[in-house]
């Protein structure tokens, strides 16, 4: 039971990560691979505040999210100035460089990471409480992002993705809009990191490798880019399938790459056969056709 609960909590955290990544990359059209590092910033900042300052969890998770947000604005503002393609390369450097720094600093516990993050909720209530918190946050994130991308703001995001030059020449500030989208997405990832740190009470650099972004990307592509519920479907599928394979009782050195192969094959298949993902509109609808033409 405890195992199932842990898996569910992990899924909820990944739903938050996938939904926020989808906001940035799917809706915003901002190619980045730095999502894991913003997850890490949230986790480390919250963890450090919990250990050294003994700050109440809500406040430290919020500060973790703010830290991720500030870092993301720095990254986006400096690289988007050059061009959209540049963000991809800049985010790669940011992800690798910052993780290298985390791996080497005394403060962050070096390669060993941060252990003994205090358990704020103890006893029998701990797991149910975290279940409620993570599922609640996941729901709020998904619905909140859905609200953002609908209505006038969402319309502007779509227009910007369609034709940025015309969008800007109509008086819209595409740059600030991109930075805002990026900051919200990364801030939400930071929040997920904070919750992760409090639940697992341990964070280490290898949990936030750049390859994680391939995994989150897989969830987004599989579920359907730029769809509200695609990331939910993607995250659940991608984390549930490995659990199912676990029952085959294969040794770890076969299991890990096998899971990787399954995921990457799924992404490649979807990319070519159904680019809109599981939750995406089918291609017969006019809107999808219009997107295809783009």
């Amino acid at each position, binding site marked *: 039971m405890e195992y199932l609960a842990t898996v569910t909590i992990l899924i909820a955290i990944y739903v938050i990560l996938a939904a926020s990544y989808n906001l940035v990359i799917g809706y915003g059209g901002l190619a980045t691979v730095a999502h894991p590092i913003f997850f890490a910033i949230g986790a480390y900042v919250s963890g450090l505040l919990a250990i050294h300052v003994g700050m109440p969890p809500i406040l430290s998770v919020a500060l973790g999210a703010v830290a991720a947000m500030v870092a993301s604005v720095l990254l986006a503002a400096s690289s988007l100035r050059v061009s959209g393609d540049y963000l991809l390369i800049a985010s790669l450097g940011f992800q690798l460089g910052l993780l290298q*720094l985390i791996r080497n600093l005394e403060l962050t516990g070096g390669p060993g990471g941060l252990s003994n993050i205090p358990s704020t909720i103890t006893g029998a209530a701990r797991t149910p409480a975290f279940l409620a918190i993570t599922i609640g946050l996941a729901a709020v994130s998904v619905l909140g992002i859905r609200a953002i991308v609908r209505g006038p703001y969402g319309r502007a995001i779509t227009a910007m993705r369609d034709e940025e030059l015309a969008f800007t020449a109509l008086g819209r500030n595409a740059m600030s809009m991109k930075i805002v989208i990026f900051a919200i997405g990364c801030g939400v990832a930071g929040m997920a990191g904070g919750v992760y740190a409090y639940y697992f009470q341990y964070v280490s650099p290898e949990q936030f490798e750049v390859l994680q972004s391939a995994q989150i990307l897989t969830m987004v592509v599989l579920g359907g880019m730029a769809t509200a519920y695609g990331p939910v479907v993607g995250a659940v599928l991608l984390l549930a399938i490995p659990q199912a394979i676990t029952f085959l009782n294969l040794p770890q050195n076969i299991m890990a790459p*096998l899971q*990787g*192969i399954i995921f990457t094959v799924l992404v*490649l298949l979807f990319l070519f056969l159904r680019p809109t993902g599981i939750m995406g509109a089918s291609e017969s609808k006019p809107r999808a056709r219009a997107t295809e033409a783009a």
Partner: protein
Amino acid sequence: MYDPVILAQIFWTGVATSAPHVLMTLGFALTLKVTGLWNFAQAGFMAIAFYTMFFALNGLDLPIFIAVLLAIGTTVVASLATEVYGLQVLRERQSGNLTFFIFTLILSQFIMYVITLIFGTEPQTLFKSILSPVQIIGGVAVSDWDLLGVGLMVMGMVALWLFMAFTKEGQFLTAVSDNAKLAELYGISARRSYRVTAVIASLFIVASMYLVGSHGGVVPNSPLELILGAVLGTLLGGIGRVFAAAAASIFLALIQSFSILVLASRWQNLLLYGFLFVAIVVFPRGVRLPKFRFALAGR
């Protein structure tokens, strides 16, 4: 500490260790120039190249030149297959940059997982011993590996330059990189140029992985880190300037080598990322040296 012999040694070792990176960067930057694509799938091809050689040498006990030929074969096949059945399809669909990025990244991931499943994650080397004979020239230790590396690097650069400057096929590549649509109007097939580029990049990849694999251990994930060096060189050199990218790779290796005089070794990688950042923020279009231009560098 600043003894000239020591400095000469650092310089030589720096240049020699840059050889695999330079070769890789040549292929990566050429691909970017011609196809306009940051082709991360090349990390996967690098893994294919290395493990083909590794298996041919250690599993099948084949002689080295056959192993290299086999590796060229598998790498070219993988790279062409990716071009024809992947990139070309996406191009015809007029997919966005993001789709290309996802495809190349996930493809190299896929290749690495398959290789992990077959070969495991233990570091492997091509030969039993990675020590190579050393001669002392003027007080500077020069190993056979160093000589091979520098030789391959120089040959690679010269061959690519000759190819681009003096063969029709090479001039087609430049035409396609300038404007693929216009080139097609003049009867140059962009599709063909992309395939030629894939083959050339494969040759550089095999040469590079031979050097890497005969100098230290390789794990399935290593190529992804190696390709970062190529990204960095390409950025510093300026997109579309293939030889400037190669020069930037040498420069970076030298900076890293000389930094041991002032920095603890664990910070050396960080220095690389520091450069990446400076490159991104300060020199978004590459470092331009006003008078010193390579023949193909201008655009």
